[in-house]
Protein backbone atom coordinates (compact mmCIF):
# COMPACT_ATOMS: atom_id res chain seq x y z
CA UNK A 1 0.00 0.00 0.00
CA UNK A 2 1.17 3.50 -0.86
CA UNK A 3 1.79 6.27 1.65
CA UNK A 4 -1.54 8.10 2.20
CA UNK A 5 -1.69 11.44 0.44
CA UNK A 6 -4.79 12.54 2.32
CA UNK A 7 -5.48 11.58 5.88
CA UNK A 8 -8.35 12.64 8.18
CA UNK A 9 -7.77 11.71 11.82
CA UNK A 10 -10.89 11.79 13.97
CA UNK A 11 -12.13 14.97 12.35
CA UNK A 12 -15.26 16.74 13.54
CA UNK A 13 -16.75 19.75 11.85
CA UNK A 14 -19.73 21.76 12.97
CA UNK A 15 -21.14 25.12 12.00
CA UNK A 16 -22.74 27.50 14.42
CA UNK A 17 -25.74 29.17 12.92
CA UNK A 18 -27.37 31.54 15.34
CA UNK A 19 -28.37 29.55 18.41
CA UNK A 20 -27.99 26.09 16.99
CA UNK A 21 -24.94 24.08 16.13
CA UNK A 22 -25.01 22.00 12.97
CA UNK A 23 -22.73 19.00 13.13
CA UNK A 24 -21.52 18.06 9.65
CA UNK A 25 -18.69 15.62 10.38
CA UNK A 26 -18.36 13.59 13.56
CA UNK A 27 -15.20 11.72 14.47
CA UNK A 28 -14.48 11.10 10.82
CA UNK A 29 -11.33 9.30 9.70
CA UNK A 30 -10.23 8.66 6.13
CA UNK A 31 -7.03 7.63 4.43
CA UNK A 32 -6.46 8.01 0.70
CA UNK A 33 -3.31 6.49 -0.82
CA UNK A 34 -1.31 8.21 -3.54
CA UNK A 35 -2.85 7.59 -6.97
CA UNK A 36 -6.31 6.68 -5.69
CA UNK A 37 -9.48 7.73 -7.56
CA UNK A 38 -12.13 8.02 -4.90
CA UNK A 39 -15.77 8.98 -5.37
CA UNK A 40 -17.70 10.36 -2.44
CA UNK A 41 -21.47 9.89 -2.71
CA UNK A 42 -24.25 11.02 -0.49
CA UNK A 43 -27.39 13.12 -0.31
CA UNK A 44 -27.37 16.89 -0.44
CA UNK A 45 -26.21 18.56 2.73
CA UNK A 46 -24.44 15.45 3.96
CA UNK A 47 -21.07 17.23 4.10
CA UNK A 48 -19.38 16.13 0.86
CA UNK A 49 -18.28 19.61 -0.18
CA UNK A 50 -17.14 20.24 3.37
CA UNK A 51 -14.69 17.32 3.07
CA UNK A 52 -13.15 18.79 -0.10
CA UNK A 53 -12.92 22.23 1.52
CA UNK A 54 -11.17 20.72 4.52
CA UNK A 55 -8.66 18.87 2.32
CA UNK A 56 -7.87 22.10 0.48
CA UNK A 57 -7.60 24.09 3.69
CA UNK A 58 -10.42 26.43 2.65
CA UNK A 59 -12.18 25.48 5.87
CA UNK A 60 -10.86 24.31 9.24
CA UNK A 61 -11.99 21.32 11.29
CA UNK A 62 -13.54 21.89 14.69
CA UNK A 63 -11.58 18.92 16.01
CA UNK A 64 -8.99 16.45 14.72
CA UNK A 65 -6.17 16.84 12.23
CA UNK A 66 -5.97 16.63 8.46
CA UNK A 67 -2.82 15.85 6.51
CA UNK A 68 -2.66 16.34 2.79
CA UNK A 69 0.18 16.41 0.26
CA UNK A 70 2.84 16.50 2.94
CA UNK A 71 1.53 19.06 5.40
CA UNK A 72 -0.82 19.25 8.36
CA UNK A 73 -3.45 21.32 6.58
CA UNK A 74 -5.46 22.02 9.70
CA UNK A 75 -2.48 23.70 11.37
CA UNK A 76 -1.18 26.05 8.67
CA UNK A 77 -1.44 29.81 8.45
CA UNK A 78 -3.52 31.32 5.67
CA UNK A 79 -0.66 32.61 3.51
CA UNK A 80 1.29 29.35 3.68
CA UNK A 81 -1.89 27.43 2.89
CA UNK A 82 -2.56 29.56 -0.17
CA UNK A 83 0.96 28.89 -1.50
CA UNK A 84 0.64 25.19 -0.76
CA UNK A 85 -2.76 25.09 -2.46
CA UNK A 86 -1.39 26.73 -5.59
CA UNK A 87 1.26 24.04 -5.75
CA UNK A 88 -0.61 20.89 -4.70
CA UNK A 89 -4.37 21.24 -5.16
CA UNK A 90 -6.38 21.38 -8.37
CA UNK A 91 -10.06 22.26 -8.13
CA UNK A 92 -12.82 21.26 -10.55
CA UNK A 93 -16.15 22.95 -9.81
CA UNK A 94 -19.73 21.98 -10.65
CA UNK A 95 -20.37 25.34 -12.32
CA UNK A 96 -16.89 25.45 -13.91
CA UNK A 97 -16.22 28.89 -12.40
CA UNK A 98 -14.48 30.16 -15.50
CA UNK A 99 -13.95 33.89 -15.65
CA UNK A 100 -16.22 35.14 -18.43
CA UNK A 101 -13.95 38.00 -19.49
CA UNK A 102 -10.94 35.73 -19.99
CA UNK A 103 -10.31 33.33 -22.88
CA UNK A 104 -9.89 29.60 -22.33
CA UNK A 105 -6.10 29.98 -22.41
CA UNK A 106 -6.19 32.89 -19.98
CA UNK A 107 -8.45 31.00 -17.60
CA UNK A 108 -6.09 28.05 -17.66
CA UNK A 109 -3.10 30.35 -17.15
CA UNK A 110 -4.50 31.80 -13.89
CA UNK A 111 -2.99 29.22 -11.48
CA UNK A 112 0.40 29.61 -13.19
CA UNK A 113 0.47 33.29 -12.24
CA UNK A 114 1.16 32.01 -8.75
CA UNK A 115 4.21 30.06 -9.95
CA UNK A 116 7.58 31.44 -10.89
CA UNK A 117 7.23 30.41 -14.53
CA UNK A 118 8.05 32.94 -17.23
CA UNK A 119 5.38 33.93 -19.74
CA UNK A 120 6.63 31.68 -22.48
CA UNK A 121 6.84 28.69 -20.13
CA UNK A 122 3.36 29.39 -18.86
CA UNK A 123 2.00 29.39 -22.37
CA UNK A 124 3.60 26.00 -23.09
CA UNK A 125 1.93 24.54 -20.03
CA UNK A 126 -1.40 26.09 -20.99
CA UNK A 127 -1.17 24.60 -24.48
CA UNK A 128 -0.27 21.20 -23.07
CA UNK A 129 -3.15 21.23 -20.59
CA UNK A 130 -5.69 22.34 -23.19
CA UNK A 131 -4.29 19.72 -25.57
CA UNK A 132 -4.77 17.05 -22.94
CA UNK A 133 -8.46 17.91 -22.57
CA UNK A 134 -8.85 18.05 -26.37
CA UNK A 135 -9.41 21.79 -26.75
CA UNK A 136 -6.30 22.86 -28.65
CA UNK A 137 -8.52 24.51 -31.23
CA UNK A 138 -10.45 26.55 -28.68
CA UNK A 139 -7.70 28.32 -26.78
CA UNK A 140 -8.77 31.83 -27.75
CA UNK A 141 -12.48 31.25 -27.23
CA UNK A 142 -14.34 32.91 -24.39
CA UNK A 143 -16.41 30.72 -22.03
CA UNK A 144 -19.70 31.95 -23.57
CA UNK A 145 -18.51 30.59 -26.92
CA UNK A 146 -18.11 27.08 -25.48
CA UNK A 147 -20.59 24.32 -24.63
CA UNK A 148 -21.03 23.20 -21.02
CA UNK A 149 -18.91 20.11 -21.59
CA UNK A 150 -16.18 22.20 -23.19
CA UNK A 151 -16.30 24.70 -20.34
CA UNK A 152 -15.82 21.90 -17.84
CA UNK A 153 -12.87 20.60 -19.86
CA UNK A 154 -11.32 24.07 -19.63
CA UNK A 155 -12.03 23.85 -15.89
CA UNK A 156 -10.14 20.55 -15.76
CA UNK A 157 -7.26 21.97 -17.79
CA UNK A 158 -7.04 24.81 -15.27
CA UNK A 159 -7.01 22.26 -12.43
CA UNK A 160 -4.16 20.21 -13.88
CA UNK A 161 -2.03 22.91 -15.52
CA UNK A 162 0.16 23.35 -12.45
CA UNK A 163 0.53 19.56 -12.11
CA UNK A 164 -0.98 19.40 -8.60
CA UNK A 165 -0.69 16.43 -6.27
CA UNK A 166 -4.41 16.14 -5.62
CA UNK A 167 -7.42 16.85 -7.85
CA UNK A 168 -10.60 17.83 -6.02
CA UNK A 169 -13.75 17.64 -8.13
CA UNK A 170 -17.07 18.80 -6.70
CA UNK A 171 -19.90 17.32 -8.77
CA UNK A 172 -17.98 17.85 -12.02
CA UNK A 173 -20.81 16.36 -14.09
CA UNK A 174 -23.65 17.86 -12.04
CA UNK A 175 -24.44 20.46 -14.64
CA UNK A 176 -23.94 18.38 -17.79
CA UNK A 177 -26.04 16.10 -19.99
CA UNK A 178 -25.28 12.37 -20.18
CA UNK A 179 -22.93 12.45 -23.18
CA UNK A 180 -20.91 15.39 -21.94
CA UNK A 181 -20.77 13.81 -18.47
CA UNK A 182 -19.38 10.59 -19.93
CA UNK A 183 -16.67 12.52 -21.78
CA UNK A 184 -15.68 14.32 -18.60
CA UNK A 185 -15.53 11.07 -16.63
CA UNK A 186 -13.44 9.44 -19.34
CA UNK A 187 -11.08 12.39 -19.13
CA UNK A 188 -10.76 12.17 -15.33
CA UNK A 189 -10.13 8.41 -15.64
CA UNK A 190 -7.35 9.09 -18.13
CA UNK A 191 -5.77 11.65 -15.80
CA UNK A 192 -5.87 9.05 -13.09
CA UNK A 193 -4.51 6.21 -15.17
CA UNK A 194 -1.98 7.99 -17.36
CA UNK A 195 -0.77 10.72 -15.01
CA UNK A 196 -1.39 8.76 -11.82
CA UNK A 197 -3.31 11.66 -10.25
CA UNK A 198 -4.96 11.28 -6.88
CA UNK A 199 -8.57 12.29 -7.44
CA UNK A 200 -11.25 13.04 -4.88
CA UNK A 201 -14.60 13.41 -6.59
CA UNK A 202 -17.89 14.32 -4.99
CA UNK A 203 -20.97 13.28 -6.94
CA UNK A 204 -24.47 12.03 -6.58
CA UNK A 205 -24.53 10.58 -10.04
CA UNK A 206 -24.05 6.77 -9.72
CA UNK A 207 -22.90 6.58 -13.38
CA UNK A 208 -20.12 9.00 -12.61
CA UNK A 209 -19.17 7.19 -9.42
CA UNK A 210 -18.76 3.98 -11.42
CA UNK A 211 -15.62 5.37 -13.03
CA UNK A 212 -13.88 5.62 -9.66
CA UNK A 213 -11.75 2.90 -8.09
CA UNK A 214 -13.56 3.21 -4.83
CA UNK A 215 -16.82 4.75 -3.69
CA UNK A 216 -17.38 6.21 -0.25
CA UNK A 217 -21.07 6.38 0.68
CA UNK A 218 -21.58 9.15 3.04
CA UNK A 219 -24.52 10.19 5.14
CA UNK A 220 -25.00 12.47 8.14
CA UNK A 221 -21.28 12.75 8.73
CA UNK A 222 -20.75 9.01 8.78
CA UNK A 223 -19.53 6.46 6.27
CA UNK A 224 -22.35 4.07 5.58
Amino acid at each position, binding site marked *: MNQPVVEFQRVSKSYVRGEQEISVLKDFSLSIPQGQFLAIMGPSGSGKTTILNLVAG*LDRPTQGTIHAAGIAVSQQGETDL*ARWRARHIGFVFQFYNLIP*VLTAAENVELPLLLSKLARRERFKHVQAALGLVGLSDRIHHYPRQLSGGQEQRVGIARAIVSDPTILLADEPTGNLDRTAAQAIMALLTRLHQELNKTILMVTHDPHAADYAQEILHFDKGKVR
Partner: protein
Amino acid sequence: MKLLLAYSVRNVWVRGSTTALTIGGLALVSLILLAVLMLGNGLNRALIESGSPDNVLLLRKGATTEIASGIYRDQAHVVRSLAGIAQTSGRKPLAIPELVVLISLTKNGADTPANVVVRGTQPEAFMLRPQVRLIAGRAWQQGTTEVVIGEQIAKRFLLGGIGSHLRVGKREWHVVGIAEAQGTAFESEIWGDVDQLMASYGRDSYSSLTLRLPAPSAFQPIEDAIGSDTRLLLQVKRERDYYREKSVTMATFIRLLGFTFTLIFAFGAILGGTMTMYGAVASRTREIGMLRALGFLPRQILAVFLVESLMLGALASLLAIGGGTALQFVTLSTMNFSTFSELAFRLTLTPVSVLITMGFTLGISMVGGIPPAIWAARLPVTAALHTPGR
Protein backbone atom coordinates in the same frame (compact mmCIF):
# COMPACT_ATOMS: atom_id res chain seq x y z
CA MET B 1 0.64 40.52 -14.38
CA LYS B 2 -0.41 41.54 -17.84
CA LEU B 3 -3.15 38.95 -17.51
CA LEU B 4 -4.44 40.44 -14.26
CA LEU B 5 -4.44 43.86 -15.86
CA ALA B 6 -6.40 42.52 -18.83
CA TYR B 7 -8.76 40.94 -16.34
CA SER B 8 -9.40 44.32 -14.68
CA VAL B 9 -9.68 46.22 -17.95
CA ARG B 10 -12.19 43.78 -19.43
CA ASN B 11 -14.22 43.72 -16.25
CA VAL B 12 -14.46 47.49 -16.35
CA TRP B 13 -15.38 47.25 -20.02
CA VAL B 14 -18.14 44.61 -19.73
CA ARG B 15 -19.94 46.53 -17.00
CA GLY B 16 -20.76 49.03 -19.74
CA SER B 17 -23.51 51.32 -18.58
CA THR B 18 -22.78 51.25 -14.84
CA THR B 19 -19.14 51.92 -15.61
CA ALA B 20 -20.07 54.76 -17.93
CA LEU B 21 -22.29 56.35 -15.30
CA THR B 22 -19.65 56.10 -12.61
CA ILE B 23 -16.95 57.45 -14.88
CA GLY B 24 -19.27 60.22 -16.00
CA GLY B 25 -19.98 61.27 -12.42
CA LEU B 26 -16.32 61.16 -11.47
CA ALA B 27 -15.36 63.07 -14.60
CA LEU B 28 -17.92 65.77 -13.86
CA VAL B 29 -16.55 66.37 -10.39
CA SER B 30 -13.01 66.43 -11.73
CA LEU B 31 -14.07 68.84 -14.42
CA ILE B 32 -15.51 71.18 -11.79
CA LEU B 33 -12.17 71.14 -10.01
CA LEU B 34 -10.27 71.62 -13.24
CA ALA B 35 -12.54 74.53 -14.20
CA VAL B 36 -11.87 76.20 -10.85
CA LEU B 37 -8.14 75.75 -11.35
CA MET B 38 -8.41 77.09 -14.89
CA LEU B 39 -10.39 80.05 -13.59
CA GLY B 40 -7.63 80.78 -11.12
CA ASN B 41 -5.03 80.44 -13.86
CA GLY B 42 -7.00 82.78 -16.10
CA LEU B 43 -7.35 85.37 -13.36
CA ASN B 44 -3.66 85.08 -12.59
CA ARG B 45 -2.86 85.57 -16.22
CA ALA B 46 -5.22 88.54 -16.50
CA LEU B 47 -4.07 90.28 -13.39
CA ILE B 48 -0.69 89.17 -12.08
CA GLU B 49 0.87 88.60 -15.44
CA SER B 50 -0.30 92.00 -16.57
CA GLY B 51 2.69 93.23 -14.64
CA SER B 52 6.13 92.49 -15.95
CA PRO B 53 9.11 91.95 -13.62
CA ASP B 54 11.09 94.74 -15.27
CA ASN B 55 8.44 97.37 -14.66
CA VAL B 56 7.98 99.69 -11.71
CA LEU B 57 4.74 101.51 -11.00
CA LEU B 58 4.70 104.84 -9.19
CA LEU B 59 1.57 106.02 -7.39
CA ARG B 60 0.81 108.89 -5.05
CA LYS B 61 1.53 107.97 -1.43
CA GLY B 62 -1.60 106.42 0.07
CA ALA B 63 -3.27 105.52 -3.22
CA THR B 64 -4.00 101.86 -3.74
CA THR B 65 -5.14 102.03 -7.36
CA GLU B 66 -4.16 103.97 -10.45
CA ILE B 67 -7.64 105.52 -10.56
CA ALA B 68 -7.25 107.02 -7.10
CA SER B 69 -3.70 108.17 -7.65
CA GLY B 70 -2.28 111.41 -8.96
CA ILE B 71 1.14 112.50 -10.16
CA TYR B 72 2.01 116.10 -11.09
CA ARG B 73 3.78 117.00 -14.29
CA ASP B 74 6.87 118.26 -12.45
CA GLN B 75 7.04 115.05 -10.39
CA ALA B 76 6.94 113.05 -13.60
CA HIS B 77 9.69 115.26 -14.96
CA VAL B 78 11.92 114.64 -11.94
CA VAL B 79 11.42 110.90 -12.19
CA ARG B 80 12.27 110.85 -15.89
CA SER B 81 15.57 112.52 -15.13
CA LEU B 82 16.68 109.87 -12.64
CA ALA B 83 19.48 107.44 -13.46
CA GLY B 84 18.84 103.68 -13.60
CA ILE B 85 15.90 103.67 -16.04
CA ALA B 86 15.97 101.64 -19.24
CA GLN B 87 16.23 103.74 -22.40
CA THR B 88 14.54 103.66 -25.75
CA SER B 89 16.61 103.36 -28.90
CA GLY B 90 16.27 107.14 -29.15
CA ARG B 91 18.06 107.40 -25.75
CA LYS B 92 14.95 108.66 -24.02
CA PRO B 93 14.10 107.15 -20.58
CA LEU B 94 11.41 104.49 -20.84
CA ALA B 95 9.23 106.06 -18.15
CA ILE B 96 5.69 106.88 -19.13
CA PRO B 97 3.27 108.98 -17.10
CA GLU B 98 -0.28 107.88 -17.76
CA LEU B 99 -3.81 109.05 -17.03
CA VAL B 100 -6.30 106.30 -16.20
CA VAL B 101 -10.03 107.03 -16.22
CA LEU B 102 -13.18 104.94 -16.17
CA ILE B 103 -15.93 105.37 -18.71
CA SER B 104 -19.29 103.74 -19.00
CA LEU B 105 -19.92 101.54 -22.00
CA THR B 106 -22.88 99.34 -22.77
CA LYS B 107 -22.01 95.75 -23.23
CA ASN B 108 -23.44 93.96 -26.19
CA GLY B 109 -26.58 92.15 -25.05
CA ALA B 110 -26.79 93.83 -21.63
CA ASP B 111 -28.96 96.78 -20.66
CA THR B 112 -26.82 98.11 -17.82
CA PRO B 113 -23.53 99.75 -18.71
CA ALA B 114 -20.21 98.55 -17.33
CA ASN B 115 -17.04 100.44 -16.45
CA VAL B 116 -14.14 100.31 -18.85
CA VAL B 117 -10.60 101.54 -18.26
CA VAL B 118 -9.28 104.21 -20.63
CA ARG B 119 -5.53 104.73 -20.43
CA GLY B 120 -3.96 107.89 -21.77
CA THR B 121 -0.39 107.06 -22.63
CA GLN B 122 2.36 107.38 -25.22
CA PRO B 123 3.26 105.18 -28.18
CA GLU B 124 6.23 103.85 -26.16
CA ALA B 125 3.67 102.03 -24.00
CA PHE B 126 4.00 99.16 -26.47
CA MET B 127 7.68 98.89 -25.54
CA LEU B 128 6.91 99.12 -21.87
CA ARG B 129 4.40 96.28 -22.16
CA PRO B 130 5.65 94.01 -24.91
CA GLN B 131 2.78 91.55 -24.33
CA VAL B 132 0.46 94.13 -25.91
CA ARG B 133 0.48 93.71 -29.66
CA LEU B 134 -1.60 95.30 -32.41
CA ILE B 135 -3.60 92.69 -34.25
CA ALA B 136 -5.53 95.03 -36.53
CA GLY B 137 -5.26 98.63 -37.68
CA ARG B 138 -2.55 100.90 -36.36
CA ALA B 139 -1.49 102.84 -33.25
CA TRP B 140 -2.95 106.29 -32.52
CA GLN B 141 -1.24 109.38 -33.81
CA GLN B 142 0.11 111.64 -31.12
CA GLY B 143 -1.98 114.75 -30.61
CA THR B 144 -5.18 113.19 -31.99
CA THR B 145 -8.24 111.59 -30.45
CA GLU B 146 -7.56 108.20 -31.97
CA VAL B 147 -7.61 105.09 -29.77
CA VAL B 148 -6.53 101.46 -29.82
CA ILE B 149 -8.94 99.10 -28.09
CA GLY B 150 -8.20 95.78 -26.40
CA GLU B 151 -9.45 92.62 -28.06
CA GLN B 152 -11.97 92.02 -25.25
CA ILE B 153 -13.39 95.51 -25.71
CA ALA B 154 -13.77 94.82 -29.42
CA LYS B 155 -15.55 91.55 -28.71
CA ARG B 156 -17.85 92.76 -25.98
CA PHE B 157 -18.44 96.49 -26.26
CA LEU B 158 -17.37 98.12 -29.50
CA LEU B 159 -18.43 95.46 -31.93
CA GLY B 160 -17.90 97.87 -34.82
CA GLY B 161 -14.16 97.56 -34.19
CA ILE B 162 -11.99 99.89 -36.25
CA GLY B 163 -13.99 102.95 -37.30
CA SER B 164 -16.25 102.92 -34.24
CA HIS B 165 -16.75 106.11 -32.28
CA LEU B 166 -17.02 106.62 -28.57
CA ARG B 167 -17.30 109.50 -26.17
CA VAL B 168 -14.60 109.90 -23.56
CA GLY B 169 -14.73 113.05 -21.46
CA LYS B 170 -15.74 116.05 -23.50
CA ARG B 171 -14.57 114.67 -26.82
CA GLU B 172 -15.47 112.20 -29.49
CA TRP B 173 -12.78 109.51 -30.09
CA HIS B 174 -12.49 106.98 -32.81
CA VAL B 175 -10.99 103.52 -33.00
CA VAL B 176 -8.01 102.95 -35.30
CA GLY B 177 -6.56 99.71 -33.96
CA ILE B 178 -7.20 96.55 -31.95
CA ALA B 179 -4.63 95.02 -29.61
CA GLU B 180 -4.14 91.63 -28.06
CA ALA B 181 -2.28 91.19 -24.75
CA GLN B 182 -1.92 87.45 -24.11
CA GLY B 183 -4.94 87.30 -21.87
CA THR B 184 -3.79 90.07 -19.52
CA ALA B 185 -5.94 92.90 -18.19
CA PHE B 186 -4.75 95.24 -20.98
CA GLU B 187 -7.07 93.39 -23.34
CA SER B 188 -9.93 94.99 -21.44
CA GLU B 189 -8.55 98.55 -21.80
CA ILE B 190 -8.71 101.42 -24.29
CA TRP B 191 -5.46 103.25 -25.03
CA GLY B 192 -5.00 106.73 -26.51
CA ASP B 193 -2.94 109.92 -26.37
CA VAL B 194 -2.33 111.08 -22.81
CA ASP B 195 -2.38 114.84 -23.51
CA GLN B 196 -5.63 114.60 -25.44
CA LEU B 197 -7.20 112.60 -22.64
CA MET B 198 -6.07 115.14 -20.02
CA ALA B 199 -7.48 117.94 -22.13
CA SER B 200 -10.82 116.24 -22.63
CA TYR B 201 -11.21 115.89 -18.85
CA GLY B 202 -9.67 119.28 -18.10
CA ARG B 203 -7.09 117.66 -15.87
CA ASP B 204 -3.58 118.79 -15.27
CA SER B 205 -2.06 115.75 -13.56
CA TYR B 206 -1.36 112.17 -14.42
CA SER B 207 -2.59 109.10 -12.50
CA SER B 208 0.55 107.03 -12.41
CA LEU B 209 3.94 106.56 -13.95
CA THR B 210 5.34 103.26 -15.11
CA LEU B 211 9.04 102.90 -15.81
CA ARG B 212 11.16 100.10 -17.08
CA LEU B 213 14.29 98.87 -15.35
CA PRO B 214 17.35 97.70 -17.27
CA ALA B 215 16.94 94.45 -15.27
CA PRO B 216 14.60 93.25 -12.50
CA SER B 217 17.48 93.49 -10.02
CA ALA B 218 17.81 97.25 -10.58
CA PHE B 219 14.72 97.90 -8.44
CA GLN B 220 16.42 98.87 -5.18
CA PRO B 221 18.45 101.89 -6.46
CA ILE B 222 15.34 103.39 -8.07
CA GLU B 223 13.26 102.84 -4.98
CA ASP B 224 15.98 104.48 -2.86
CA ALA B 225 16.39 107.37 -5.27
CA ILE B 226 12.67 108.13 -5.34
CA GLY B 227 12.22 107.57 -1.63
CA SER B 228 15.00 109.98 -0.73
CA ASP B 229 13.78 112.78 -3.00
CA THR B 230 11.53 114.99 -0.86
CA ARG B 231 9.89 116.54 -3.92
CA LEU B 232 8.34 113.26 -4.98
CA LEU B 233 6.34 111.66 -2.13
CA LEU B 234 5.53 108.68 -4.33
CA GLN B 235 5.18 105.02 -3.55
CA VAL B 236 7.29 102.68 -5.61
CA LYS B 237 5.98 99.24 -6.45
CA ARG B 238 6.98 96.48 -8.73
CA GLU B 239 4.21 96.35 -11.36
CA ARG B 240 3.76 92.66 -10.60
CA ASP B 241 3.16 93.27 -6.90
CA TYR B 242 0.59 95.92 -7.72
CA TYR B 243 -1.43 93.52 -9.85
CA ARG B 244 -0.98 90.67 -7.41
CA GLU B 245 -2.41 92.74 -4.56
CA LYS B 246 -5.37 93.67 -6.72
CA SER B 247 -6.15 90.05 -7.55
CA VAL B 248 -5.76 88.46 -4.14
CA THR B 249 -9.29 89.06 -2.87
CA MET B 250 -11.01 87.96 -6.02
CA ALA B 251 -8.85 84.92 -6.64
CA THR B 252 -9.30 83.78 -3.04
CA PHE B 253 -13.05 84.22 -3.23
CA ILE B 254 -13.36 82.25 -6.47
CA ARG B 255 -11.07 79.49 -5.25
CA LEU B 256 -12.90 79.16 -1.95
CA LEU B 257 -16.25 78.92 -3.69
CA GLY B 258 -14.92 76.44 -6.25
CA PHE B 259 -13.17 74.21 -3.79
CA THR B 260 -16.24 74.10 -1.55
CA PHE B 261 -18.31 72.90 -4.49
CA THR B 262 -15.64 70.40 -5.48
CA LEU B 263 -15.49 69.04 -1.96
CA ILE B 264 -19.24 68.50 -1.79
CA PHE B 265 -19.37 66.82 -5.18
CA ALA B 266 -16.26 64.77 -4.45
CA PHE B 267 -18.12 63.24 -1.56
CA GLY B 268 -20.87 62.13 -3.94
CA ALA B 269 -18.38 60.85 -6.48
CA ILE B 270 -16.58 58.77 -3.86
CA LEU B 271 -19.90 57.26 -2.80
CA GLY B 272 -20.79 56.55 -6.44
CA GLY B 273 -17.46 54.85 -7.03
CA THR B 274 -17.87 52.84 -3.84
CA MET B 275 -21.33 51.64 -4.80
CA THR B 276 -20.16 50.64 -8.27
CA MET B 277 -17.27 48.66 -6.88
CA TYR B 278 -19.46 47.03 -4.23
CA GLY B 279 -21.71 45.95 -7.09
CA ALA B 280 -18.73 44.57 -8.96
CA VAL B 281 -17.58 42.57 -5.95
CA ALA B 282 -21.08 41.28 -5.24
CA SER B 283 -21.59 40.05 -8.79
CA ARG B 284 -18.21 38.32 -8.78
CA THR B 285 -18.28 36.76 -5.33
CA ARG B 286 -18.03 33.19 -6.61
CA GLU B 287 -15.22 34.19 -8.94
CA ILE B 288 -13.34 35.60 -5.96
CA GLY B 289 -13.93 32.32 -4.08
CA MET B 290 -12.54 30.42 -7.05
CA LEU B 291 -9.42 32.60 -7.20
CA ARG B 292 -8.83 32.06 -3.51
CA ALA B 293 -9.30 28.30 -3.99
CA LEU B 294 -6.61 28.41 -6.71
CA GLY B 295 -4.27 29.93 -4.15
CA PHE B 296 -4.58 33.67 -4.72
CA LEU B 297 -3.95 35.68 -1.57
CA PRO B 298 -6.37 38.18 -0.04
CA ARG B 299 -4.00 41.02 -0.85
CA GLN B 300 -3.92 40.00 -4.51
CA ILE B 301 -7.72 40.15 -4.60
CA LEU B 302 -7.50 43.56 -2.91
CA ALA B 303 -5.08 44.73 -5.58
CA VAL B 304 -7.30 43.53 -8.43
CA PHE B 305 -10.27 45.57 -7.21
CA LEU B 306 -8.20 48.62 -6.36
CA VAL B 307 -6.73 48.56 -9.85
CA GLU B 308 -10.23 48.36 -11.30
CA SER B 309 -11.33 51.33 -9.25
CA LEU B 310 -8.22 53.29 -10.24
CA MET B 311 -8.95 52.48 -13.84
CA LEU B 312 -12.36 54.13 -13.49
CA GLY B 313 -10.53 57.12 -12.06
CA ALA B 314 -7.99 57.18 -14.87
CA LEU B 315 -10.71 57.13 -17.54
CA ALA B 316 -12.64 59.83 -15.69
CA SER B 317 -9.58 62.06 -15.44
CA LEU B 318 -8.97 61.72 -19.17
CA LEU B 319 -12.57 62.78 -19.82
CA ALA B 320 -12.24 65.70 -17.44
CA ILE B 321 -9.04 66.88 -19.10
CA GLY B 322 -10.74 66.56 -22.47
CA GLY B 323 -13.51 68.76 -21.10
CA GLY B 324 -10.92 71.18 -19.77
CA THR B 325 -9.34 71.43 -23.19
CA ALA B 326 -12.69 72.50 -24.59
CA LEU B 327 -13.19 75.00 -21.75
CA GLN B 328 -10.04 76.82 -22.83
CA PHE B 329 -12.13 78.56 -25.45
CA VAL B 330 -14.42 80.07 -22.83
CA THR B 331 -13.90 83.69 -21.88
CA LEU B 332 -15.47 85.00 -18.70
CA SER B 333 -15.79 88.50 -17.44
CA THR B 334 -15.86 89.72 -13.92
CA MET B 335 -15.91 92.95 -12.02
CA ASN B 336 -12.41 93.96 -11.12
CA PHE B 337 -13.19 94.84 -7.50
CA SER B 338 -10.38 97.30 -7.11
CA THR B 339 -11.22 99.46 -10.12
CA PHE B 340 -14.85 98.43 -10.57
CA SER B 341 -14.10 98.00 -14.21
CA GLU B 342 -14.99 95.09 -16.41
CA LEU B 343 -12.24 92.49 -16.72
CA ALA B 344 -12.35 89.62 -19.17
CA PHE B 345 -10.21 86.51 -18.80
CA ARG B 346 -9.88 83.12 -20.44
CA LEU B 347 -10.03 79.78 -18.63
CA THR B 348 -6.43 78.66 -18.88
CA LEU B 349 -5.20 75.06 -18.86
CA THR B 350 -1.73 74.54 -17.41
CA PRO B 351 0.30 71.33 -16.90
CA VAL B 352 0.07 71.81 -13.15
CA SER B 353 -3.72 72.02 -13.19
CA VAL B 354 -3.83 68.88 -15.36
CA LEU B 355 -1.63 67.02 -12.89
CA ILE B 356 -3.65 68.21 -9.91
CA THR B 357 -6.87 67.05 -11.59
CA MET B 358 -5.42 63.63 -12.41
CA GLY B 359 -4.12 63.23 -8.87
CA PHE B 360 -7.46 64.29 -7.44
CA THR B 361 -9.47 61.91 -9.63
CA LEU B 362 -7.21 58.95 -8.95
CA GLY B 363 -7.28 59.88 -5.28
CA ILE B 364 -11.04 59.85 -4.95
CA SER B 365 -11.41 56.67 -7.00
CA MET B 366 -8.83 55.08 -4.72
CA VAL B 367 -10.62 56.23 -1.58
CA GLY B 368 -13.94 55.04 -3.00
CA GLY B 369 -12.42 51.71 -4.04
CA ILE B 370 -10.83 50.80 -0.74
CA PRO B 371 -13.89 49.61 1.23
CA PRO B 372 -15.21 47.27 -1.51
CA ALA B 373 -11.70 45.96 -2.19
CA ILE B 374 -11.23 45.15 1.49
CA TRP B 375 -14.60 43.46 1.50
CA ALA B 376 -13.59 41.36 -1.52
CA ALA B 377 -10.30 40.38 0.08
CA ARG B 378 -11.99 39.30 3.29
CA LEU B 379 -14.82 37.22 1.81
CA PRO B 380 -14.94 33.78 3.42
CA VAL B 381 -13.92 31.40 0.65
CA THR B 382 -16.34 28.54 1.22
CA ALA B 383 -19.37 30.82 1.42
CA ALA B 384 -18.17 32.74 -1.64
CA LEU B 385 -17.96 29.51 -3.63
CA HIS B 386 -21.55 28.78 -2.66
CA THR B 387 -23.10 31.99 -3.95
CA PRO B 388 -24.83 32.00 -7.29
CA GLY B 389 -22.44 33.64 -9.75
CA ARG B 390 -22.53 35.29 -13.11
